[in-house]
């Protein structure tokens, strides 16, 4: 997670709506998930683990901008989970995203307008966990 300005997020929970917007956020392009999680070391492969060999790729500095919108409740649940110590009201919602990235030699722009059917699963919640769990 990265710290964000308070105005990066707007939440209207009663209307099942929220928005996350950040511009020109510095990140590293780690090329792929394995390199992201191994700090660019890749995966060795063929050591008895069910992972393919993935060559190490050094991360590259990049910038991303995004506008994610949650909208419309599809399901609602009150959860009190004593195993994970969290509780609250949770909504499964629709969602869309617009995003772009820039790095030396390359840029990407997501489709506009974003396709709502691209939402696989999205959740909004008002929750308490850990110390605030009762």
């Amino acid at each position, binding site marked *: 997670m990265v710290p964000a300005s308070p105005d990066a997020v707007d939440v209207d929970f009663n209307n099942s709506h929220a928005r996350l917007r950040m511009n020109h956020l510095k990140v590293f392009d780690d090329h792929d998930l394995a390199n992201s999680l191994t700090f660019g070391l890749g995966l060795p492969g063929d050591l008895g683990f069910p*992972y393919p060999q993935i060559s190490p790729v050094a991360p590259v500095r990049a910038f991303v901008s995004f506008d994610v919108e949650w909208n419309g409740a599809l399901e609602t649940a009150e959860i009190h989970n004593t195993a994970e110590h969290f509780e609250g009201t949770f909504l499964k919602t629709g969602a869309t995203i617009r995003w772009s990235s820039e790095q030396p030699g390359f840029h990407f722009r997501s489709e506009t307008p974003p396709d709502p059917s691209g939402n696989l699963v*999205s959740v909004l919640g008002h929750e308490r966990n850990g110390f605030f769990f009762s």
Partner: protein
Amino acid sequence: MKSSKPRDPPANSRRFFIGTVATAGTALGANLLLPNSAHAFNDQSCENARPKSIPGGVAPFNPFAIMIHHFPLNPAVPVAGINDPSQITDFHGFVGLTHIRGGGTGTDTKTGVSSPMAFQADMGFSTGKFIDIDGRRREGTFAFV
């Protein structure tokens, strides 16, 4: 959590980056919750508060890679059965999480050549009150990118 692929992935091309909203985000998400990490270098920080990660999470390349203190959403699971969608603990506030796919256009800025590409993102936010790693009550907003 899955990394996505461009429709026509050039070998060793940085164009694969377009699939790494999820990938790069994983690094950011994981690293902010690790001590002494210099991997994320966001300077939009509104304060220096450091939240504590949730105890659980996933380790997709165990034992070769770091654990991610995050439970990816599963489209097949009803909302009543989800894991904690927050990445930080000792937290009281609003959270959002999304797992989403889409398309777009990648452009080689040296040649001007553009091509259609796909992406997959696992992103979210937490905004509210929390207790930081030093035990202080704080209020803040975080993005899971």
